[in-house]
């Protein structure tokens, strides 16, 4: 170990605003005790402000807490009574309002209470870290730095660490390791420049979009239609993002740029447009006040028309011809076509790209250490699939550079600053050896910190060394099984959304055969989300259209045999999940020896949504687990599990998946998705090294029987008669009840796994033959959302 061990036992967060409270929430999610401080309340209990903030965490959406109970691990506190608690905190994060005097006043107050080794970090997004360091007590300066989280902190991967000149180097490394592994964050080391990296460029990009929208006369709803997922960016696109962030917050960040970047050639752009100032003045601050650039009137969505100064119906979409250009596969050709098109929407899009390229190239030397940091900051902090340098490089670096240059010379750009010379001396910024640093005029490799040894396949950038996913051991249409020579066979699905069809089934079975003969263990892991959306329904279509029920039943029993093979194979099988773990994918996880789950695993047996039931052992597994958990009363242990299936309840975190019984206590939750494979392999190897033996087949387990099914139906009938579920829902629910309680047998009857698997299969087929279920499946395949019939 090159670094000394550093354990964070407790963290204090100063400031119980939305950001402070949500940071505390994420600490609690990660098993880190958090103390949330705020000013003493003037009325009521002195911890009132922090208490209220903690209560609010339970209701916010998307949920900052991985389960509501996590809130108990956040201790409310106030500066009057609890400063002595700081001495036990290894890290203190300050997240109060962006006022230099307030912050320094607070530092003065807390300094005497900090432990000698306590790291003190500010979550400021606008103030200078060095100025804050200069103003803070001498004793704190070596252990002071900025750590800038993005909203919402549980979900946004980025954290910027901003050292000040006095920051202790080892402390920064320790902090980076803690942020990366414990909190699961993607860390960028940023320079102490205004708004740091992500906001500097991300907010500039929004301002450029606003500028160009006005220039080309594009309505805001059209801008958002064009600059969202079609560009590989979040659904909230440009203007909706401003609403979500809060227009006041957005304006504040812009103001910071205006005040602190007087010499930036783009300075004239750094002001809130008049319409924005007017909205803020009127208290229309975006999502938090329900009125912003967008608002709702009844069911109608309205958008601001800045020219008219009024709201109009938000019903306009981008031009189809332009959207066709955006779909061009070749990135170079795509940009070329947009640039060449006379359509104002295409011109607008090209201008947005170009003005960002112009800006990041011009400022790379001062804003970030290297181009990788810029791209990852934008990807992780603003949710873009691709960073701006990546887009540029993918489209052909030199060609795009010439286009930008030509536009600068033609006066089309926001200002006429020339591109820096290095742009024309290179073929790109990302190369196998590293990414370009303009300040160092060199390629900078990735960080060598120990913590990154855990990331076997970190986030990749266009132009970087292509990741080598080990050596192929077996490959078919459905899976690739590979190894890095460590005794673990990794199975990666090749199908779209990692859906499970016949080729995947066959691939898994073959891989297990191979692994039993040659490997210590198996990990099911894919280079990208999701784990799996479930069975590949479309692969059943041909047999289904031909009415070939025998083939369908065969496919189903193959699926069941595969999950049983996972359970009873002679080697440990670990499922490494992230994103959706649905249906058949969930059944794979259920039959693994262990699940290693990224916190953001969304898990559910969702078959009911398409009018089916879990037919590859999911229903069986829930019946079996209920029997194993029951202390005498199988039905009591079963009823919540039944409801989870019957309502297609989806766990919204790996922790919730444990509560709902998809994952077991022994399953492992990982906070950084890039560490997932490392941890999964460690688990597989440790099971193997511990003398793994396959579980013995369950001989007989008690079921809840026909009276259990009747009691479930009692609830269903109330839901149906109350209009909460349809008649077909009732039919499916009653069928699942009959299966999960063991069929037409008395309570307490002992059955084996195959007994319930057979019921599952028959039930599944009967539903598949049902017209209403067929409508649901067709609807899902066509519209990708469930039909309620």
């Amino acid at each position, binding site marked *: 170990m090159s670094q000394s061990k550093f354990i964070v036992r407790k963290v204090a967060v100063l400031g119980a605003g939305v950001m402070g409270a949500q940071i505390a929430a994420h600490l609690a999610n990660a098993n880190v005790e958090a103390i949330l401080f705020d000013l003493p309340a003037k009325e009521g209990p002195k911890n009132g402000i922090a208490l209220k903030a903690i209560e609010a965490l339970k209701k916010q959406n998307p949920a900052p807490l991985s389960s509501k109970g996590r809130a108990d691990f956040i201790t409310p506190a106030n500066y009057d009574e609890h400063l002595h608690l700081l001495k036990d905190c290894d890290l203190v994060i300050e997240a109060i309002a962006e006022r230099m005097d307030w912050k320094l006043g607070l530092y003065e107050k807390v300094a005497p209470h900090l432990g000698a080794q306590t790291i003190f970090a500010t979550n400021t997004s606008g103030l200078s870290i060095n100025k804050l360091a200069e103003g803070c007590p001498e004793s704190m300066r070596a252990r002071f730095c900025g750590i800038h989280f993005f909203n919402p902190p549980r979900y946004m991967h980025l954290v910027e660490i901003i050292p000040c000149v006095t920051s202790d180097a080892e402390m920064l490394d320790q902090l980076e390791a803690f942020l990366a592994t414990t909190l699961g964050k993607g860390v960028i080391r940023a320079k102490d420049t205004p708004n740091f990296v992500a906001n500097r460029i991300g907010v500039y990009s929004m301002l450029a979009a606003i500028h160009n929208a006005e220039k080309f006369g594009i309505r805001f709803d059209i801008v958002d239609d064009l600059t969202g997922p079609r560009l590989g960016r979040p659904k909230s696109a440009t203007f909706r993002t401003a609403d979500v962030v809060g227009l006041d917050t957005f304006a504040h960040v812009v103001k910071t740029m205006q005040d602190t970047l007087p010499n930036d050639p783009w300075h004239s752009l750094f002001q809130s447009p008049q319409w924005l100032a007017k909205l803020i003045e009127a208290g229309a601050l975006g999502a938090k006040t329900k009125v912003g650039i967008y608002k709702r009137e009844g069911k109608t969505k309205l958008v601001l028309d800045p020219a008219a100064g009024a709201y109009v119906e938000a019903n306009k979409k981008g031009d189809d011809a332009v959207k066709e250009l955006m779909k061009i596969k070749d990135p170079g050709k795509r940009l070329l076509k947009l640039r060449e098109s006379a359509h104002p929407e295409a011109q607008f899009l090209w201008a947005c790209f170009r003005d960002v390229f112009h800006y990041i190239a011009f400022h790379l030397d001062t804003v970030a250490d290297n181009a990788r940091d810029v791209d990852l900051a934008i990807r992780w902090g603003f949710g873009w699939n691709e960073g701006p340098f990546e887009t540029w490089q993918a489209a052909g670096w030199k060609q795009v550079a010439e286009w930008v240059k030509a536009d600068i010379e033609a006066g089309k750009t926001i200002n006429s600053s020339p591109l820096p010379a290095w742009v024309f001396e290179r073929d790109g910024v990302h190369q196998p050896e590293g990414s370009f640093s303009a300040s160092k005029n060199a390629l900078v490799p990735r960080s060598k910190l120990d913590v990154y040894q855990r990331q076997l396949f970190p986030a990749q950038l266009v132009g970087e060394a292509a990741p080598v996913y080990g050596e192929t051991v077996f490959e078919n249409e459905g899976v690739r099984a590979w190894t890095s020579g460590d005794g673990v066979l990794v199975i990666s699905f090749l199908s779209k959304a990692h859906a499970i069809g016949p080729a995947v089934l066959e691939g898994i079975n073959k891989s297990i055969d191979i692994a039993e003969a040659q490997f210590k263990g198996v990990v099911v892991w894919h280079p990208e989300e999701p784990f799996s959306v479930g069975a590949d329904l479309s692969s059943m279509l041909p047999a289904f259209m031909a009415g070939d029920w025998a083939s369908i039943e065969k496919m189903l029993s193959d699926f069941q045999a595969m999950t049983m093979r996972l359970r009873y194979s002679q080697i440990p099988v670990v499922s490494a999940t992230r994103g959706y773990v649905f249906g058949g994918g969930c059944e794979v996880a259920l039959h693994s020896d262990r699940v290693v789950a990224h916190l953001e695993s969304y898990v559910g047996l969702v078959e009911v949504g398409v009018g089916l039931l879990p037919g590859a052992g999911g229903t069986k597994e829930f019946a079996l687990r209920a029997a194993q958990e029951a202390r005498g009363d199988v039905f009591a242990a079963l009823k919540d599990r039944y409801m989870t299936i019957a309502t297609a309840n989806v766990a919204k975190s790996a922790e919730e998946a444990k509560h709902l019984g998809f994952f077991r206590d022994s399953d492992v939750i990982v906070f950084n998705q890039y560490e997932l494979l490392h941890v999964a392999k460690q688990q597989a190897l440790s099971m193997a090294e511990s003398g793994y033996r396959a579980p013995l087949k369950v001989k007989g387990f008690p079921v809840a029987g026909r*009276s259990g*099914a*009747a009691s479930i*139906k*009692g609830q269903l*009938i*109330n839901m149906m*008669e109350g*209009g*909460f579920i349809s008649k077909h829902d009732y039919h499916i629910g009653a069928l699942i009840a009959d299966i999960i309680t063991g069929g037409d047998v008395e309570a307490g009857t002992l059955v084996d796994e195959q007994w319930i698997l057979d019921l599952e299969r028959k039930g599944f087929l009967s539903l598949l033959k049902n017209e209403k279920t067929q409508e649901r499946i067709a609807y899902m395949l066509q519209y990708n959302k469930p039909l309620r019939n």
Partner: protein
Amino acid sequence: MTKQVQEAYIVAATRTPVGKAPRGMMRFIRPDDMLAHTIREAMAQVPTLDPALVEDVIAGCAFPEAEQGLNMARISALLAGLPHTTGGLTINRYCSSGINAVQIAADRIRMGEADVVIAGGAESMSLVPMMGNKVSLNPEIFARDENLGIAYGMGLTAEKVAEQWQVSRDDQDAFAVESNRRAIAAIEGGEFKQEISPIEAIYRNPNLSTGEVEIIKKILDTDEGPRAGTNMEGLAKLKTVFAAKGSVTAGNSSQMSDGAAAVVIVSEKILKQFNLVPLARYVGFAVKGVPPEIMGIGPKEAIPAALKVAGLKQDDIAWMELNEAFAAQALAVIRDLGLDTSKVNPLGGAIALGHPLGATGAIRTATLVHGMRRHGQQGKYGMVTMCIGTGMGAAGIIQAL
């Protein structure tokens, strides 16, 4: 008219305050303790009466299991200090259990088989949930459509009544507002003081830092359910829980509650022998079945049936305690029978005061017995009536003395 050998008189009637369940002030008080408490207090109201003469204790309970299982009536009789010679019978007809306890006790006396019987009821919905700790329905219910109503939850049946009798959400909410208004006014006016026997609640809080158990004791003497300031705007915000497009909410339904009551009933012979003051005379009772899926309409059938048994007309009833299981069913009954709303639940009903299922009949008997005397209605008739799960209605009549 009933044939009987002697009259049955209520000489004592008392109840606990009613607490909210499952997180209310009485959440830790065992129902058998509540019942024992009310038996003791009722006997204390007739100090001259020899406890050895109490033939039986009959107590209603809707979910007689766990804390209120094992024949609670017998256990509570012994805990209350009654001699071992006194019997104990726990009975169940869900929400009418309490009034049926009174009916059975009175009938034993009217038949001449007994001279002193205590009737009552107890229910802790905090400790034993609605439907009991373990629900197990008969698979036969689902074998034929006509039996499905057996599986209907009470809220759903209220929705069915609301739909069939066209009781609007607004009307239900207005009814709930009035119930709360009356209950609050009654509490402020001290109306329940006479009938309530304050009960001690003990809260045991472990102090994890000292290792000591802190014991907090409180004397509870006031019903916990009524909400001052309940208004239409507040109720309108509540979501329907039993039907997606329904009208029944937590605000216009009865509350889950904890409570108990006991009533001492004696023969004329005992009245004279011990020089007791009769508070009321028991008059009669009737029960009627209705379809399970509209169980709430039960009192519509039971009220005329009980009146017939007693040889009375609807107008003869000066005070009616009509259990407000749901505003929807209460309004449907009131409208169909043309009941005089000023005489129905003048002190508020279960929407405000709570509804500890099997105890309610006995609790409201205590309300009626004391209330009618206090309001100068001696000689007049009073009624306790309610709907009952799986489709019944019950009504019992007394005459205030």
